[in-house]
């Protein structure tokens, strides 16, 4: 390498280029990795049957391969081992097995192997051999797969009905009982408050009589609800009986058999026998299930609908809270503010809101919104429920407001840019026509700045969607039994806890007892979150760059 080469500085230019290339490769590689692993989750993976050196058979899906570290530093030829998801958790105890490649003597993919997705205990892998109805053989061999779909559909319908009974009907009964109980507590409090004047004159006695009447009514309501509850319990038992009784027997690798209750089967398929078209259909069905259903098996299987729903509702409420304030503040900055201490303070506030760590917002939300504001609301409006908090504990409203604070600067800055993009001519024309400043601002400038506001909203939503730390203190949970929106008055339950995609990832990846089994679900969820955030971010940034280009072309407004 000659001196000219070094003196030209080219190596440094190339290094800089390399740094940029590395940044891009890493960033795109990351997205690519998550996308690949996330999207692969839905593809029906091949079931392989391995023959081992000791003559035994193993069936499973290959999920990984790694080099075995060679101890002693002998530099021995790298031996590998593969990770096999063997399923059948109830039989083997573990979902995964590491198998040394040296020990594998045969490798095949028999088409008759089936994957049985179950409600509990994860997948079962095996060959369906018998279908039993109340202990009698009802079908054998290929006939099974012909008869099963109808049965599964029937079971699914029954399960839906069961679920409706168990959750909606029983939940409704519980709510009625709780409402009556709270009403009783309230009556008792009133009576306690007036206890001093118990021996008072007629009006008091009348009031007491009315109170007693009301109390009797509430007690009756409780009794009625309890009777209804008994009835529902019987219905549930009947449904359960109807569900049971059918069993699918699988032949497992190695000769043993596994009986699976048909009622607990989600779906059964033979990946090795599927045509590419079937696989695509399966992929779509699985993807839909992921997006639309609820998680099972402590979040390691099923779908992420509640988390998706919680995330969307969270940012929607946040948007409602942040947009008016953000737009007003931006309008003030651009249209009204004169240079002064307040304007400077406003800019400092905006910059620092943007820089304050999100966890600080979280701790503020917890201390101020939940314990401060929420606690006050509870004391004022829900005293009969205390000490159980209603608004004095984490909930979607508080989380949304916390995120609104967090995204306020994003909205202000983008809106301000949008306002700046409205040409001066438009304003001047408006003034020339005799419009007041208010009319100019709200009928000319703000509509003209709509793209900027939209940019702010999109970027704000993108920022908020990815935030997890503040939510961990303000009401996110790993599993919420109820969505914050349902058919019961007042339909939107702002005090409820909620699930969230980001927290779902954190909890599943770091608090789950079976991380290995959760990994595909984790990648799929991470990809969902990443896709949402990056698409939103891309849209926002694209829009913003267009506005900037317009400003540059037209000059500042």
């Amino acid at each position: 390498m000659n001196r000219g080469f070094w003196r030209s500085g080219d190596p440094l230019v190339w290094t800089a280029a390399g740094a940029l290339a590395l940044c891009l490769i890493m960033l795109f590689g990351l997205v690519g990795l998550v996308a690949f692993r996330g999207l692969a989750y839905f593809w029906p993976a091949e079931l392989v049957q391995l023959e081992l050196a000791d003559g035994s058979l193993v069936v499973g899906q290959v999920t990984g391969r790694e080099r075995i570290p060679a101890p002693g530093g002998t530099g021995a030829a790298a031996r590998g081992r593969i990770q096999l998801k063997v399923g059948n958790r109830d039989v083997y105890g573990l979902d995964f097995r590491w198998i040394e490649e040296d020990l594998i003597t045969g490798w095949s993919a028999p088409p008759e192997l089936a994957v049985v997705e179950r409600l509990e205990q994860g997948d079962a892998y095996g060959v369906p051999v018998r279908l039993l109805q109340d202990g009698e053989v009802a079908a054998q061999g290929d006939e099974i797969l012909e008869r099963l779909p109808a049965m599964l559909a029937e079971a699914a319908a029954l399960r839906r009905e069961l679920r409706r009974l168990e959750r909606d009907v029983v939940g409704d009964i519980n709510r009625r009982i709780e409402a009556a109980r709270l009403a009783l507590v309230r009556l008792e409090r009133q009576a306690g408050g007036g206890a001093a004047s118990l021996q008072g004159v007629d009006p008091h006695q009348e009031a007491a009589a009315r109170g007693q009447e009301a109390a009797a009514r509430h007690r009756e309501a409780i009794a009625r609800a309890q009777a209804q509850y008994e009835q529902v319990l019987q219905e549930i038992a009947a449904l359960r009986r109807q569900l049971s009784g059918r069993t699918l027997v699988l032949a497992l690798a190695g000769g043993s058999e596994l009986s699976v209750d048909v009622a607990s089967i989600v779906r059964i398929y033979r990946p090795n026998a599927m045509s590419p078209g079937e696989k695509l259909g399966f992929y779509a069905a699985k993807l839909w299930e992921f997006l639309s259903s609820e998680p099972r098996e402590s979040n390691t299987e099923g779908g992420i609908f509640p988390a998706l729903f919680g995330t969307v509702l969270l940012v929607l409420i946040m948007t409602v809270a942040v947009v008016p304030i953000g737009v007003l503040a931006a309008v003030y900055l651009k249209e009204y503010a004169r240079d002064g201490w307040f304007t400077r303070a406003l800019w400092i506030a905006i910059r620092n809101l943007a820089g304050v760590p999100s966890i600080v917002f979280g701790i503020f939300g917890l201390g101020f919104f939940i314990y401060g504001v929420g606690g006050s609301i509870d004391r004022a409006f829900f005293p009969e429920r205390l000490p159980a908090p209603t608004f004095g504990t984490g909930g979607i409203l508080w989380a949304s407001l916390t995120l609104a604070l967090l995204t306020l600067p994003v909205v202000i800055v983008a809106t301000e840019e949008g306002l700046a993009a409205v040409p001066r001519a438009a304003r001047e024309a408006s003034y020339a026509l005799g419009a007041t400043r208010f009319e100019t601002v709200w009928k000319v400038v703000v509509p003209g700045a709509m793209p900027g506001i939209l940019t702010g909203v999109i970027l704000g939503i993108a920022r908020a969607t990815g935030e997890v730390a503040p939510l961990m203190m303000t009401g996110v949970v790993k599993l919420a039994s109820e969505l914050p929106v349902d058919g019961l008055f007042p339909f939107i339950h702002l005090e409820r806890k909620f699930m969230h995609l980001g927290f779902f990832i954190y909890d599943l990846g770091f608090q789950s007892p079976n991380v290995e089994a959760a990994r595909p679900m984790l990648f799929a969820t991470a990809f969902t979150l990443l896709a949402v955030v990056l698409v939103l971010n891309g849209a926002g940034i694209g829009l913003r760059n267009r506005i900037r280009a317009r400003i540059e072309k037209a000059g500042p407004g």
Partner: protein
Amino acid sequence: MRAPWLGDSLPGVSTGPDPARALAKRRARRLLLDRLGRGLAGLGAVITVGAVALIAGFLMKEIVPLLQPARVERAGVISLPPGALVQDGSLAASGTVHAAGIDEFKERLFLLREDGVIQLLDARTGQLLEQVALAQRPEPVREGSGAAAPSVTAARYEPQRGTVALGFSDGRVGAARVAFPVAFEGQRRVVSFSIEEKENVQLLPEGQAPAAVDWVETRDRVVAVGAGADGGLYLLVRQAGRSLFGPAEWTERRYDLTGQLAGRPAALALSPDGNALVVGDDVGLLYQWDLAPSAGPRLVAAVVAAGPEAGRLVDLVAAERPADPRSAAQLVNPPGRLGDPAPRDPDDRARSLPGSRLAHPAHTDHSAHPAHAAHPADPALPAGPAVTALRFLIGGRSVVVGDAAGGVATWFAVPAEGRGQVLQPVHRHRSHNAPVTQIAASQRNRTFATADAAGVLMMHHSTSEQTFFALEAAGAPAELVIAPKSDGLLALSGEAVELWRVHLPHPEISLKTLFGRVHYEGYPEPQWMWQSTGGSNAFEPKFSLTPLIYGTLKGTVYALIFALPLGVLGAVYTSQFMTPRLQNVVKPAIEIMAGIPSVVLGFLGGLWLAPRVAQGFPALVLMAVFVPGSFIIAAWTWHRLTGGKRQLPAGAEVLLLAPVIGLSAWAALALGPWLEAAVMRGDFRFWVFDVFGLPYDQRNSLIVGIAMGFAVIPVVFSISEDALSSVPRDQIAGALALGATRWQTVRGVVIPAAMPGILSSVMMGVGRAVGETMIVLMATGNTPVMDFSIFNGFRALSANIAVEMPEAPVGGTLYRVLFVAALLLFAFTFLLNTLGEWIRATMQRRVQRL
């Protein structure tokens, strides 16, 4: 002015109201709206500024209680019930009250008098509610003959254990269990009092009145100790045999420890588990016995109790049998050898201190108690101040020692060479001006109160070494008690019981405990520690934020090491060597990447990258060499191929280098196992531990550095790029025209001009890394250790808040300390942002001037 020919009768006008009025009305409305609009916009601005002020203000508001001084106010003075309350004429008139206690609501108060009568008073009014005489008080030694029944000569109330140890004038020692059961009558709370007497035993020789006693009862042992007024020290240990089945067999052993003392016992205390006895004597020595061995008490050490040499070990040789009633303690070094320049045994601390100022207590026969071997009879050898009060703190590991010179110190066992755990004075507290007479311990935390002979009371905290207040009581207190909820103080002096309300919500917090090194119980030396919660009240919370700040900075540094070169160099390249078209692709792409949710980065770091790095760390090392090396090689290759004459079209290097990076990374991955086998002896984790002594955690700083680097790169890149592209083009053109190469231009013109912007980007990057929560939470093990090893994890301030906040009780000390952490983060990022912004603004002005 209206044209007169228009008249009023113009059709279509006359039908409506006066148009001028309508117009005026409309104008008024428009003006109002105009003003309203202005007000509304202003409101938005005010809310924004208010939000920041509210956050800062709220954080501070939650911290203020930590810094508030203690509040103490006199709650009342109750005169002692007059002697007329004595029921039995044969009893001595009520004299000294030996013990007193108060319930958790500060409603009831009991007094134990010399004559064995226990009186229950209303703590608010002083009204006598009930009185009982100790039923099992020993009978008079001689029946009839008018001899008085033995009186109570010593009592020790331990509210923590709920027992009162009693010493009777005939040498007996006993105990009673006292409690304040709470019942509810409807809404009303009723506090009552119960006393359950235990047996008593003849511990001291008959007729010798104990001057100090203590009594501990646990599930499998009973320990009683008594010190006679004449200097004897007696111990009883009753131990339940360890049998799996059937009732336990109890064995009782008695010991006379008098001979092991150099002076007369002046204060004593048993640890709550009955396994340690601490005695202080009147020549200023503190003795520590281990009572656990079944062979009998073992004197662990005798140490100087007070003065500048407090804690120095003193060797005593007990003659004959160790725990013999008639054994004699002797000092190893007789007074004559004190100044010996060549001690015989250099290993012995006590003897190897030539010129030691401490006069060892000498020993002669003692007339009152012939068994005593040692007393400071020689006036030329002044002993240290006598130990006058001892009390174990909650948890039973720390003991507070008060001495005759007014000194107060917290002692606990610290490893001593060759002796195991020896009591040492660890925390020294504000001294009294008179001998300390009483010490009371809180049942909630490590707060304690001390009283002296002049009637001054103080309240201290052992861990934080704070003294909260000093106040004067009516007289020298005969008994001092801290109310069970640690919210009150009771002193019994002269003829009155004085009560104070104490508000001391966060005694364990001081600037020193938050940021300094603190010597915690059970540790050999002061250190920075974060360990906020333990199993019980007895746990000593460790609230040092220093390890967390350290963790935050460690994570930041590693992230910056990774992200800064990449971000800044990438920005330089993008802004200077790329066509605008490529710039328009690269810049938004990296900006979009800034939105990658940190939870995804943390998840990938912790679950994808960490196990891979743990497998292939050697490959990563190779990559760090190969990849930059490949850039140079590629540049050189190009240079040779073209003879240094041709340059690539702007931006093409990036495209060319992508496969080069891929190739070098692949080479590194392929050669990693070879490196591991050849250089690192097959397993780099062992190798790292062997060679550098560093243990390898799977989730370590390296992982965090990389994962957080992904978050920091876009920040650094975007701001640097902005600064670099705003360097005026004519300057660059000028430099190039003068014959500078493109890199010389960048180094000599562009980077210096953009330096403030780059600096500002670094600050913003630091701000992002400092505040990052999810990545550090997920990609490290979150152990609050303080070392800079790249193979170790750490715990950052932000992650700590996320981990501990959900479990912190509202308004508690932990809750508020976490707010301190949050305020630190807030202040730090505020500073960084403001500074970064200021630098950037300065730069903009400078560029505009150019």
